[in-house]
């Protein structure tokens, strides 16, 4: 394919995009609507995976020991834990260490902790991580049966809640996205149909001088791609602004130890995906139309 042809295809595509003003605008708006939803879907999926990986990597339970326990009891708990097959690592956190941790966390100026050094309300505990996370529930119930174990906590509830919310948003945005994708393809194909109709004389001339279908359709496909591309840019602007706002309101830390991505680390993935999806929508929209109106 010669440079002259490429120049010709692009020039013709841009020209008919501009000449088709209102229809082009309508197409761009629907494409960008679809792509905004696609962007939302992507952001949720990426952050969900990210959160899941953080939870898995840092998953541990904390088991608290009865206040009445002495050091022999603690030793007994430790060996009981070690005998459980699924236990990966064990870390003992004494009352004193726990208090120090609290102090650090609240910058040492947490007034309600003042004067507690002597009468520490916190308990000794173990932090335990597992080998196989799918056996979490069974292992926890085994641990709960150990003598002198008062209470077992984990961040499972938080995780479940997070996963619950995001999968719902994911589902809704996915189906809305599919819906708008269909509408986009429909509207783009209509726009291209109008172009083809307006230029049928030209198309006829091309046919009798021996232009292949491919050569004839290229400018129309490029027109569709331009629609998709501009729609993607619009969507990118909307999604990145909205996500930036969301982060500034909610912050990068959703729950203790669960971070979400900041805008800069997802920007290019998002940008690439939206542009790619926009181009695919635009090209398939014109493809649908050309199949119907050009190849007859």
């Amino acid at each position, binding site marked *: *394919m*010669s*440079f*002259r*042809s490429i120049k*010709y295809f692009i020039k013709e595509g841009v020209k008919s995009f501009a000449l088709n003003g209102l229809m082009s605008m309508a197409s761009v708006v629907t494409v960008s609507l679809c792509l905004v939803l696609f962007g939302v879907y992507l952001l949720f999926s990426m952050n969900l995976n990210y959160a899941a990986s953080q939870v898995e990597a840092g998953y541990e339970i904390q088991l608290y020991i009865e206040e009445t326990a002495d050091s022999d009891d603690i030793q007994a708990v430790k060996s009981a834990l070690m005998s459980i097959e699924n236990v990966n690592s064990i870390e003992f956190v004494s009352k004193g260490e726990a208090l120090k941790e609290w102090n650090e966390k609240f910058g040492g100026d947490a007034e309600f902790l003042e004067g507690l050094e002597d009468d520490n309300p916190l308990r000794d505990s173990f932090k335990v991580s597992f080998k196989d996370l799918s056996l979490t529930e069974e292992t926890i119930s085994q641990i709960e049966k150990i003598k002198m174990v008062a209470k077992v906590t984990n961040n499972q509830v938080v995780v479940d809640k997070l996963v619950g919310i995001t999968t719902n948003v994911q589902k809704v945005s996915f189906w809305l996205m599919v819906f708008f994708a269909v509408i986009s393809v429909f509207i783009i194909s209509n726009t291209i149909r109008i172009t083809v109709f307006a230029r049928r*004389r*030209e198309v*006829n*001339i*091309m*046919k*009798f*001088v*021996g*232009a*292949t*279908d491919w*050569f004839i359709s290229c400018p129309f496909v490029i027109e569709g791609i331009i629609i998709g591309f501009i729609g993607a840019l619009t969507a990118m602007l909307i999604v990145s602004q909205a996500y930036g706002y969301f982060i500034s309101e909610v912050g990068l830390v959703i729950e203790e130890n669960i971070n979400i991505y900041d805008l800069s680390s997802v920007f290019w993935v998002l940008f690439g995906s939206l542009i790619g999806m926009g181009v695919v929508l635009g090209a398939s929209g014109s493809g649908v139309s050309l199949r119907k109106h050009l*190849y007859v």
Partner: protein
Amino acid sequence: MIFFNNVTKQYDNGTIALDNINFFIDKGEFVFIVGSSGAGKSTITKLILCEEKPTSGTILINGIDVGGLKHREMPYYRRQLGMVFQDFRLLPNKTVYDNIAFAMQVRGATNREIRRAVPNVLSMVGLSGKAKVRPHELSGGEQQRVALARAMVNNPPVLIADEPTGNLDPATADGIMQLLEDINKRGTTVLTVTHAKDIVNKMKKRVVEISNGKIIRDEVGGYCCEL
């Protein structure tokens, strides 16, 4: 070169435009197809161009069975034909040069080939000075010359002209016919559909006359009298 064997064309609405037509045109011939309006002349050009398929019979152009062409083969087949129409069919928003270059570009010609061939063919039709002009700034005769230049730029073995002088005054028409004759003398087979009685009489070429979809006369050097 051009062979119609028992060709019948019935349009979808039932009109029988051609009724069992037979003719053979040899390489290098110059042939007029004449007949009154609605006789079926343009149907012949449409069949040759593969815009329409024959209802029955066989059409061979350059040894190619036109009726049996697949959709994707048509562009390549059409590149062997030069076509000229009554209404010129130039692209209005392209210059004369670009209109002609386009016919080469479509076939994947390089810029170099285009730069060499277009001025050549423009000087052949006597429009060297008009390369940068758009079609609407030209007279009818000049527009038809551009169309001829476009048809000839790829050196097709066959040139089909459907009423090429239909929109032109007699003096201009003579000029176009002269060009067709020149093109024929260089070895291109020329098939010209026309109404113009004077021209046919003057040029003394082979004349195929059609009436109601049938050939009623086919004489070499024939004289046209029934128009």
